[in-house]
């Protein structure tokens, strides 16, 4: 992890919301607090499982943590949180009020201040065949959200249509955990704030609508974004994508509509609807490349009709993050590597 930490530090960017540790109960909090800074700064997930080793994940590797705040791969030496810890953790992350979290328990995660998400596992309670909530919660996955301002600097100039004074329809592609959401978030912030620093291609701030089905882009807490997504941005939080896109189009008149991880048939329909309504769509999808995308029935149509004007392919490599930009006909425009500003960031 140390080696990887070094690689990623230069472009990692500060965590603008480092308060996630404060919400954890003792002794987990002290144990993690005492970890060296270079490890703590690349932690992506903290996994707390009752009676099993405390685990941290980051930079593509996992380690257990001992009671003395050292890393180990030996599960027997690791610190094992007991029932009391998970009980306290649940009490603290639910603001002492689990009864206000019924919707969250149905979905299986709780968003805490700072936009961090805590995934939950336990015994589910069913009602009419659907999960109603989770009880006996004993597994927690603290996913640390990172906001990297300037992550989109490198690709933004390619997304601007200078003649039309607008943003081009864009699809961001990558495998999971490569930084799509971070990039999308920064795009929202920059497009919403306006782009004065780009010379001829300067643009005033636009109305941005984000449909945030999994509360990941804006990290909303009580409907208010935890991340800086720009002054002219509206967020439809925890809303199914297809439905949310239509709601946004009808009621919020966005110039740019942003949506994470499109993939189902109805998503593609809504995207088409938005494109024809004169609204720019910036979306992300799970795929290693355009060829892969063609094999997915829901998205193939969108690709073949040339709906998107720009494709951004992200890939995390050993030396950083690479980012290829293709035009409407899938011809490469520019190959960028992780050394350039704005393309290095954590997922």
């Amino acid at each position: 992890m140390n080696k990887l930490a070094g690689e990623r530090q230069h472009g990692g960017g500060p965590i603008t919301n480092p308060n996630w540790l404060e919400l954890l109960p003792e002794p987990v909090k002290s144990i993690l607090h005492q970890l060296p800074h270079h490890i703590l700064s690349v932690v992506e997930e903290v996994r707390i499982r009752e009676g099993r080793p405390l685990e941290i994940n980051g930079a593509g590797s996992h380690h257990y943590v001992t009671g003395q705040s050292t890393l180990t791969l030996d599960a027997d030496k690791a610190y094992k949180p007991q029932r009391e810890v998970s009980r306290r953790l649940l009490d603290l992350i639910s603001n002492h009020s689990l009864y206000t979290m019924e919707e969250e328990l149905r979905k299986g995660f709780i968003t805490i201040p700072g936009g961090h998400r805590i995934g939950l596992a336990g015994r589910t309670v069913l009602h009419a065949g659907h999960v109603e909530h989770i009880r006996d919660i004993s597994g927690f996955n603290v996913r640390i959200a990172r906001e990297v301002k300037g992550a989109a600097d490198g690709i933004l100039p390619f997304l601007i249509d200078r003649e039309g004074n607008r943003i081009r329809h864009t699809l961001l592609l990558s495998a999971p955990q490569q930084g799509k959401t971070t990039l999308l978030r920064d795009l929202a912030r920059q497009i919403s704030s306006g782009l004065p620093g780009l010379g001829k291609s300067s643009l005033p701030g636009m109305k941005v609508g984000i449909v945030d089905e999994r509360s990941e882009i804006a990290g909303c807490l009580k409907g208010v974004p935890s991340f800086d997504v720009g002054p002219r941005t509206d967020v439809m939080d925890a809303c199914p994508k297809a439905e949310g896109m239509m709601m946004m189009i009808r009621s919020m008149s966005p110039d740019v509509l942003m949506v994470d991880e499109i993939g189902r048939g109805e998503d593609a329909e809504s995207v088409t609807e938005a494109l024809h309504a004169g609204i720019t769509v910036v979306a992300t999808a799970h795929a290693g490349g355009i060829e892969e995308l063609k094999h997915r029935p829901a998205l193939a149509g969108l690709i073949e009709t040339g709906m998107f004007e720009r494709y951004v392919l992200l890939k995390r490599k050993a030396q950083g993050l690479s980012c290829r930009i293709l035009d409407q006909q899938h011809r490469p425009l520019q190959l960028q590597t992780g050394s350039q500003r704005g393309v290095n960031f954590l997922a």
Partner: protein
Amino acid sequence: MLKLFGAVLILLSGTLAGFHQARQFASRPKQIRELILALQRLSTEITYGFTPLPEALRKIADQMREPLHTFFLNAAREMGPATGLTAQESLQRSLHENWKRTSMKAPEREVLHQLSFTLGTSDRQDQIKHIQLAVEQLKHEEATARDDQAKYEKISKSLGLLIGALIVILIF
């Protein structure tokens, strides 16, 4: 002269002690009633308002008179993000710090103590059930407290004076 002054002093303190005791008997059922109303309000906040516990307790505290005002306010404060305490610990701490100032007795305290274990830790239906149970128990205690009041309030007043008189007679 000095003897007379001492005798008056003893009589006076005996009477005051009696009146204090009588007031305790009178205010216990009143405070239990207030506590019941507070819990019913809490139940409404949970069912219809989805209000988080600290906020709900603060709201209730605003509508309460002393000493229950401080009890609820303290509990809400202890739940603040800086303390790292659970709902259970916060309630029990506030109970420990503020209980002496109330006129209520051990059974009522036990009801709140038991409630502290479940408050905030389950879904709405379960919360309501537990609060309802606590309210029922408190109602029972209220009835006992009223009986005690009818029986002992007046007696304590006279008893204070009489004990004072007895001490005076014994000394002189």
